[in-house]
């Protein structure tokens, strides 16, 4: 099993959550504790065990290709933090 260490800054970057240094320390300690607990799973022999993604077996749930009503654009854009005309507006996108 993996170590109890978690790179909180890296993970927070992936999750797009800004953290203060204080939060990095606090979350790092708390999540390290939690990982120490979950590492107990290493005791289970799971080599020959299939993974369960959905607990109730179900297959091929699909819908017919028929059109349903859309939302009214004003309803959609009324909730936008920032809009411009018929668009959502966002700050500049910097290529990663």
């Amino acid at each position, binding site marked *: 099993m993996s170590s109890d260490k978690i790179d909180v800054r890296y993970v927070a970057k992936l999750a797009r959550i800004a953290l203060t240094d204080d939060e990095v320390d606090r979350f790092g300690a708390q999540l390290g504790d939690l990982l120490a607990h979950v590492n107990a799973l290493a005791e289970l022999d799971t080599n020959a065990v299939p993974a369960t993604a959905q607990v109730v077996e179900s297959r091929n749930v699909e819908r017919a290709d028929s*059109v349903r009503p*859309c939302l009214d654009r004003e309803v959609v854009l009324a909730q936008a933090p920032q809009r411009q005309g018929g*668009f959502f507006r*966002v700050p500049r996108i910097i290529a990663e």
Partner: protein
Amino acid sequence: MTQYEAVIGIECHVELKTATKMFCGCPNEFGGEPNTKVCPVCLGMPGALPVPNAKAIEYMIRAGLAFGAEIPAFSKFDRKNYFYPDMPKDYQISQYDMPLTLGGVVKYWLEDGTMKACRLTRIHLEEDTGKSTHAGSGDGRIAGSSYSLVDFNRAGVPLMECVSEPEIYSAPDAVAYLGALRSTLLQLGVSDVKMEEGSLRCDANVSIRPAGTTELGTKTEIKNMNSFRSVQRAIESEIERQTQLLESGGRIVQETRGWDEAHAVTHSMRSKEQAHDYRYFPDPDLVPLEPARDAVDRVKAALPEVPWQRFERFTGAYGLNPKQATQLIENSALAEYFDRVVSASKNPQQSTNFVLGDLSRLANESGVAVARSRVSPEHVAELIGLVESNAINSKIAKALLDRMWDGAGSPKTLVEKESLAQTSDPAAIEKFVDDAIAANANVVAEYRAGKTNVAGFLVGAIMKASRGKADPALVKDLLHKKLG
């Protein structure tokens, strides 16, 4: 000096031509007022859930089978997690390790008729993103823009990603590969495959290696190619860049490069390839797919003939040259029309001449496609029969075709009704010949004085007098005899 060879792999994103989006009932249509084709699902609203479009899955299976791919018994959807403003949920529903189709081959051919093949790694199904317009910089480019505007009409449109093996070795081959992929998908009716509308988008992975070696070199990924022409130019330019770099002792860096059409160069988009951590995992909102074997068999049985098969048939059994075959195959409806003409006329060469010649000319002039014109393939075959049996000559055939285009119907009926049939009766022709000799004494004298080329004038006069019906071969024959 070391000779290098290029190794190219192509990734294509193809929007499927379903009525609705991949996971919701919003219409799947190009364009329209921004943010009018959206609902809670494709806007990624809190609480909304995806339900897969059965038609999109069927189209995937159809495409996979057409390329000879395996349709695995089990497939699933995964989430690809990354943040981007035009991706509503900030994850994309895609397929990671268990796509709907595995393997397969795209067969394509070059201008000279050489048939080539490139294996597919896989085709998987995912959802398209919305569109961002970069504003505030004046030129619409992302660099230097101060804000972006987002339209989610395209978000959630079903997208199939076709990934090829790195088995293409030149820019023209890459274009031919794309052409075959495109015409096949068009033939299958699963996509519009329009590069200009973005329903076909492709990236190329390009590397070079010393000719004769087998190890792959470091690759770059080329993006922003908006036409077949730009694919060819971009790949050529990138091969050249890599070659020069290696020859001058440099090293290729694995990176993404954008094609700059205006300056005809690729430029680095991400200087340092940052390893993305997409955190793929099975989408817990969706259940696995296990395509029913009998349904897959039904799709397989209903597959149309695909372009490369048609190419082999046209150039093989029909004996067309590669250019003619390609011209027909590029327009599937025309190829089907052609097939009907051939099957009625049993004369592939004459069928080609009429379909690619006069009929295509008429189509161009009128703006009506041959296959949608008022000329039925059976009537074209009749016309071919009339020419074959020398009942009419080619000039009359052409005139008849013009009238058939305007709705005149059966050429046989026209010929009978208007007694346009060619005259092969020697007595009748002899009369026309005698009349012409009598009326043109001075020309006859010139001929006899050795200027034999004036015979053409006499033939013309005879044909005119017979209103085109005299068999030109008999006319010439008799004339030469009489003039002795």
